């Protein structure tokens, strides 16, 4: 009798390389139901989401701007996940970086940009690392699950930000819960005239490039990937698992911190609690869609930014709530997680 059989062996390469295409297709099929429920035509909505933003110069620039924090958090999450360290704390680490960036940004009034901006980036990187340190230490020395600790520290960080903005850092001029504006020399230069694409994009691409090189070409990268694939095996081979995982967790926190500096220095020029639209959590989607590779993360971040920008026009043109973008991203994550099983299993037709 004919039937389907699931075997524990990787699916053929052509199937695996089509996983992103399958995932996107199935996601849009599922989301069509919602679009119809909102009284719009799915085809028109997909045009607004995926094509329309690419036809206008200003929208293309918006995509680059919106992709910037997502590239950084995606790279951050990828580095940690590759080593088998599930850093869910990028959101908190991003805010740690934002706090450092906003603080240093107000101190650098007398410095030229060429000194002020690197200082802010360095401070943000270190702050993100510092916020990632405790869960990483607990993980490698006490085997405490990092997911719960990093998740809880995200909430703690939100309280710290709220404390700063309602207390010592409340803007004395406006009285709004936002920190004082950073010095002009700390504000990132704009890369494309008449747009909001800022230096942060180069920082993000450089981070992705450097981490690609580190993971692909250095001993650290090789060992980290070995740990991620098989922790016990790596230990057996004499790889210093603890220090490698610790390092990956700290780098991950540091890069997430850069995302915070980039939003402060490039977009807002002050710290606020609405600085991040869940960029840290979206980083997990970026890393998963990008199949834990650096080029993949950059592409995934650009794709999600396209959907975010597209949802704005879909909302304006068709009246579909802008949260459609969030629905698509979450669905895409769950669908592609399921399809990624094809890397480990294959389906055969049994006769």
């Amino acid at each position, binding site marked *: 009798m004919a039937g389907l059989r699931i075997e524990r062996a990787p699916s053929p390469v052509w199937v695996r390389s089509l996983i992103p295409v399958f995932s996107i297709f199935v996601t849009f099929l599922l989301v069509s139901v*919602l679009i119809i*429920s*909102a009284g719009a035509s799915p085809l028109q909505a997909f045009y607004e989401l995926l094509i329309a933003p690419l036809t206008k110069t200003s929208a293309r620039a918006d995509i680059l701007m919106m992709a910037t924090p997502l590239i950084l958090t995606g790279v951050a999450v990828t580095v940690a996940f590759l080593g088998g360290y*599930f850093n*869910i704390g990028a959101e908190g680490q991003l805010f740690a970086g934002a706090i450092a960036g906003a603080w240093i940004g107000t101190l650098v009034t007398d410095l030229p940009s060429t000194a002020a901006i690197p200082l802010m980036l360095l401070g943000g990187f270190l702050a993100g690392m510092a916020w990632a340190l*405790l869960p990483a230490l*607990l993980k490698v020395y*006490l*085997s*405490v*699950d990092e*997911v*719960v*600790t990093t*998740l*809880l*520290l*995200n*909430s*703690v960080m*939100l*309280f*710290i930000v*709220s*404390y700063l903005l*309602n*207390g010592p850092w409340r803007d004395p001029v406006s009285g709004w819960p936002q920190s004082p504006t950073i010095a002009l020399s700390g504000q990132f230069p704009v890369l494309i005239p008449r747009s909001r694409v800022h230096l942060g994009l180069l920082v993000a691409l450089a981070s992705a490039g450097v981490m690609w090189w580190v993971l692909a070409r250095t001993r650290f990268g090789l060992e980290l990937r070995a740990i991620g694939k098989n922790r016990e095996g790596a230990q057996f081979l004499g790889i210093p698992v603890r220090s490698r995982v610790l390092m990956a967790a700290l780098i991950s926190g540091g890069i997430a911190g850069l995302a915070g500096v980039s939003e402060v220095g490039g977009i807002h020029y002050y710290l606020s609690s609405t600085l991040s639209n*869940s960029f840290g*959590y979206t980083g*997990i*989607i970026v890393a*998963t869609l990008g199949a834990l590779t650096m080029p993949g993360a950059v592409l995934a971040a650009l794709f999600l930014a396209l959907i975010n920008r597209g949802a704005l026009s879909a909302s304006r043109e068709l009246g579909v*709530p*802008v*949260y*459609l973008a*969030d*629905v698509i*991203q*979450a*669905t895409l*994550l*769950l669908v592609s*997680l*399921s399809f*990624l*099983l094809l890397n480990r299993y294959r389906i055969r037709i049994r006769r």
Partner: protein
Amino acid sequence: MELSIESILVLFGATLRIATPILLGALGETVIERAGILNLGIEGTLLLSSFTGFVAAQVTGSLWIGLLAAMLTGVVLCLLMGLLSVTLGVNQHVSGLGITMLATALALFWFRLQYGGGTTPPALDESFQPLQAFTGTPLEPVFSQHWLVYVALLLVPVTAWMLNRTSFGLRLRSVGENPEAADTAGVSVYRVRYEALIVGGILMGLGGAFLSLAQLGAFSHGIINGRGWVAIAIVIFGNWRPGRVLAGALLFSFVQALQLRLQASGIALPYELLLALPYLLTIVAIALVGRNVSAPAALLKPYRREG
């Protein structure tokens, strides 16, 4: 703030009210985790069930239908968690977070469709009202609570009894501790895990509904505001046992109630730092206890039959 018996009793009353949705969520999470699944979808599950409960109550005019809709939403989202983590065996962390993201996005999407972009939260004409008990006595603020508060408290021994004294509980714990042995003994691991998810989903649905149908009688985007993450922390803090989970929920809620009280009385205090305290305490507790001691042994591990 004056310290009188009355003010302390009011504080206790507030503690119970604040604890209820967290306790319901944490009990649901306990049941699910004891079966071997970490459900990080809880935050979104609370939000979406609180929303569907609200909408169903408003559309039908029946709070009971609202309650039912909320529980059904909890079950559906937990079944989705089951599809991903039990049937497909996908990474539980990422699938749970994905469900939170999806449920949150759906709640916000449908909210916008239903109520437009207004900033004032829609409210129910009629919501569940607190029971009247000990009226006119100092005990009134403690015991005049919504009936769901009492249900939540009652569910603590019920859950403990179910886990420890029933054959369903035995099977549930066995698939959470040693699925291979349970399977050999003829227990269907998948089936029991799905059953645990259904029970947990009902509890989470009740937790979400309590906020929108009883305590607030309204819905807003921030209605859950991290309560799901608190529940996750409390389950660990409570060592996966309903009684201790209750203790954790009450402790957390007492700090919250105290903080609100201090804030209202105008005492200048960095209350955000006070609010962060329970989270830090949980991290310390996890570090001290070490998660290997009492966490269900098969937590986070998808079960696959060999062969």
